[in-house]
């Protein structure tokens, strides 16, 4: 839940990077840390094992600018991706304002992606959060690898869309990030669905990292507007 500090004139929001192990969640944060001005970010905290696998979480606070005289401060967290760390993963989701799902594009990781997405749904449900109504974007990472699955396959598996029931929302909403594609549209079977915005990325070089962060931050701030 976003917190507004009137004394410090600050809005703090929590964004969680979720996804399968070794998918690039920590790399996303490391890139953000390396690229933003030191005066607009805090320390990057990593609770990791000695082999640099995330044990509990990574944490990075960044300021993304000022709106209406309020500094917008985003607390970025990653969760440990490995399946057996679910207890820690669930804790990090508490009071979340926006989610980035970092999928590993490699064909062999498709099952791990789906498992992590399923786990995200389940953990959100246990908190009573509805993923279909909260800021949520998907990042397809490692697009540079030769064994990366085609985008349409990843979209079909991980981002088939939530059904839109309210008639006033059943109208085409173009995807602002991909010309010719829609976020809300009617599928051939007749249902209206809404997909999460998606981004292609190569987190190790930084490609797509800021596009993803900006998109989710914007969605989060719009929920306050």
């Amino acid at each position, binding site marked *: *839940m976003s*917190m*507004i500090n009137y004394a410090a004139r600050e*809005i*703090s929001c*929590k964004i969680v990077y979720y996804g399968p192990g070794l998918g690039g969640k920590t790399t996303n944060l490391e890139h953000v840390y390396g690229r933003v001005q030191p005066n607009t970010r*805090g*320390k990057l*905290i990593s*609770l990791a094992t000695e082999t640099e696998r995330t044990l*509990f*979480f990574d*944490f990075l*606070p960044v300021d*993304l*600018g000022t*709106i*209406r005289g*309020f500094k*917008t401060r985003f*607390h970025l967290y990653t969760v440990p991706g490995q399946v057996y760390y679910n*207890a*820690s993963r669930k*804790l*990090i989701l*508490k*009071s979340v304002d926006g989610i980035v799902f970092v999928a590993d594009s490699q064909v062999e990781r498709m099952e791990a992606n789906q498992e992590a997405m399923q786990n995200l749904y389940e953990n959100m449900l246990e908190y009573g959060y509805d993923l279909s109504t909260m800021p949520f974007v998907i990042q397809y990472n490692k697009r540079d690898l030769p064994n990366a699955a085609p985008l349409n396959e990843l979209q079909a598996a991980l981002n088939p869309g939530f059904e839109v029931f309210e008639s006033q929302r059943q109208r085409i909403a173009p995807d602002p990030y991909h010309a010719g594609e829609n976020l809300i549209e009617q599928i051939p079977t007749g249902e209206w669905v809404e997909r999460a915005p998606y981004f292609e990325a190569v987190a190790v070089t930084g490609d797509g990292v800021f596009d993803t962060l*900006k*998109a989710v*931050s*914007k969605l989060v*701030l*719009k929920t*306050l*507007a």
Partner: protein
Amino acid sequence: MRSLQQFLYESNARCALLVDRSGQLVATVGEQPRFDATAFATLTAADFSANDQLARLIGETEFNSLFHQGEQESMYLVDIARRVILVILFDNRTTLGLVRLKVKGTVEELARLFTAMFQRARDTMHQPNILAGAEDEIDRLFQ
């Protein structure tokens, strides 16, 4: 705040921090911390959450307080109304016993205060909408 200042004076503890359960720093009283307070608040909330889960595993509903002992500096963390964590930092000038003894009244007072505050927030359902109508400004920020 006056109650916390009084507590710090009586217990000889260095400083007290109030941290929201989601990891946001709410207030600090006493010596200004020389460390990164944002990171500290996040780790405090994570520490408390992890210990809550540990408590459940052994059949407790929660651990109401935690104590971390260092060679010079120690910290005592205590839950306030299940929403806020009070962290007390102290050194060798005082003892855990004195800190625990003196903080009891303050914890009760803060619990009453926060419970009433959360109740008021629930009753009025007041949602401060400070960004209402700021869509354009948000769009510009991310151009």
